[in-house]
């Protein structure tokens, strides 16, 4: 008796995780179960997020994207690494900097462009913009802009899994700014007392718009979260493998029925809050410190070091990503804008399961 939220596309991306025969075994330090193919997949998702978002910035500057324009530039390791830790039946509640997570969960990148461009090809059919793509297939929960609200919703999905005794996990993505909100608090507290299978993934990018983290929360985030009675750890949010490892621990724990945990992924917002923000309030020293740690470039360098990506492969992969983005953009641009006659349709759902 499903609620009628049918998958919008076939699931499946991001699932195979075997180590590849015939290649040099990856170094010891790799997370368990992560092989060369995974490493390349992780990298490809990160590069795809980066490339797609750069393209959107371009379209925004051209005036093709109207309204606000948010990206997860510099947050790719968090979005991709954490989502990669999910199993095929798990779900995520996403927000404004985690395109990579949606890609890992199987969202075709063309939907990203269609939504930003307000086209009918988007699952919102132009009713929402930006990355506010709601109800994306069976694995990505309804998006809402209200900071903190999605955590309570994710807790509810986790509750449903517990009710039905399914070994599924819900993951919630959010910035550190969410920790101040009442809805976050109520959702997290409920998950803690009910020991719900919830993995909380926080990107701490040190600012909520212009407000530095010290004015959002007093003291270390992991201590705040430990106060909810759950494991809380902090990792380098620009290191996709570190994020994956911590998220995987949280996901495994949740799946074992041991309740929620929290992963703080430390990073820095390199661009403005939105593309309309020049971020002049950010101390230059902070940017200088973080810019060289770019998660995409860094991971590419590591892959070369590991020997899982040579120049030719990197080139081919990059070309593939650009081609995918080109195609996605073209597809979205070809998708018609919504017709005004659609305006009043679909305010209510129609299906009803019983007699």
């Amino acid at each position, binding site marked *: 008796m499903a609620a009628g939220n049918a998958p919008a596309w076939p699931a499946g991306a991001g699932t195979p995780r075997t180590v590849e025969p015939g290649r040099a075994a990856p170094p010891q330090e790799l997370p368990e179960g992560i092989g060369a193919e995974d490493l390349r997949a992780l990298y490809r998702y990160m590069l795809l997020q980066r490339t797609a978002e750069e393209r959107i910035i371009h379209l925004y500057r051209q005036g093709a994207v109207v309204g606000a324009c948010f990206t997860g530039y510099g947050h790719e390791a968090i979005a991709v690494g954490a989502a990669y830790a999910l199993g095929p039946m798990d779900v995520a509640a996403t927000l404004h900097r985690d395109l990579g997570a949606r890609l890992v969960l199987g969202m075709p990148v063309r939907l990203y462009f269609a939504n930003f461009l307000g086209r009918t090809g988007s699952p919102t059919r132009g009713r929402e913009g930006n990355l506010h793509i709601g109800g994306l297939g069976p694995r990505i929960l309804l998006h809402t802009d209200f900071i903190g609200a999605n955590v309570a919703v994710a807790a*509810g999905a986790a509750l449903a899994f517990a009710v039905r005794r399914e070994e599924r996990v819900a993951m919630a993505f959010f910035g550190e700014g969410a920790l101040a909100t009442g809805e976050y608090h109520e959702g997290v507290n409920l998950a803690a007392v009910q020991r719900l299978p919830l993995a909380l993934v926080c990107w701490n990018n040190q600012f909520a718009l212009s407000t530095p983290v010290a004015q959002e929360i007093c003291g270390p985030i992991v201590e705040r979260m430990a106060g909810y009675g759950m494991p809380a750890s902090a990792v380098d949010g620009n290191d996709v493998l570190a994020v994956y490892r911590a998220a995987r621990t949280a996901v495994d724990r949740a799946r074992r029925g041991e309740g929620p945990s929290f992963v703080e992924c430390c990073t820095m917002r390199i661009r403005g809050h939105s593309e309309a923000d020049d971020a002049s309030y950010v101390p230059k020293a902070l940017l200088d410190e973080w810019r060289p740690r770019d998660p995409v470039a860094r991971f590419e360098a590591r892959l070369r070091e590991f020997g899982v990506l040579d120049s030719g492969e990197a080139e081919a992969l990059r070309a593939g990503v650009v081609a995918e983005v080109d195609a996605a953009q073209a597809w979205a641009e070809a998708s018609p804008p919504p017709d005004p006659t659609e305006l009043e349709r679909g305010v209510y759902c129609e299906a009803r399961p019983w007699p």
Partner: protein
Amino acid sequence: MAVMTYLEAIADGLREAMRADPSVIVLGEDVAVYGGAFKLTRGLLEEFGDRRVIDTPISEAGIVGAAVGAALVGLRPVAEMQFADFISNAFNQLVNVAATSAYRAGGCVPLVVRAPCGAGTHGGPFHSQSVEAYFFHAPGLKIVLPSTPEDAKGLLLSAIADPNPVLFLEHKALYRSLRGPVDGGLAFVPLGRAAVRRPGRDVTVATYGMMAHRSLEAAEAAAREGVEAEVIDLRTLLPLDLETIAESVARTSRLLVVHEDRLRGGLGAEIASYIGEHLFTSLDAPVSRVAAPDTPVPYAPPLEGAYLPSAERIREAIVRLARW
């Protein structure tokens, strides 16, 4: 057909839904062990277990938010507010997150928020409110407020089966004071259809909830003065059955809207405007409203009594309209 109180009928509907569909769960403050602040959910924990009947911390936004999440992955949660007043803390989750989901994303959020509303039990400003008008403006939400045990059960069943978020208001002063016949089993009453409780040729009275009873009383009194009022119980407040009202007014040419909720910006305003616009040429008298004054609900009995529209005030308004 058994005779039940309004409260028993709601409990019966909840139990039947839970028996019929394992995806129906109940969550809220003190709903499990205690059986709810009004003891409406008593026995559910024993029958359905603590996976399906869940005590939560005091966190209305968390409760409704969790209901949204659970609904998105296939459950049909029924959340209880201890008092309707407290839903103000879940306003965002209900109005913005849940109700707009279909429109924004085609995502169905089949959930019910049950909330005991209404004055008359000396609960004071924060345990007596009528909250329907705050939610009536929200696209994508449904709102129900039954006035009889039969409707209470049948509309709750329909609300739970509905794929949309439904705010199910229960008048707490009717819980134990009102008894009536109730069908067994899955005795659905459809959402969105008003019921004509009393036929009449002179004046149409559109009302709901506790005021359905007071309006019937008033109609009887008016009848003794030779005025026959047709009393329509709206039952579902959103979507609103304006057709049934219009059809009646087309015959009576006079409309009185009566609600317990405050006048300004209450449902009466929408009904009066709609009829005033669409039946302009049929009206023989101004569409009138009887409602509570624009104040919080006071506690002390003399004030609370004066706050609530009385049968006498309604009778007067009916007769005034008829003689207009």
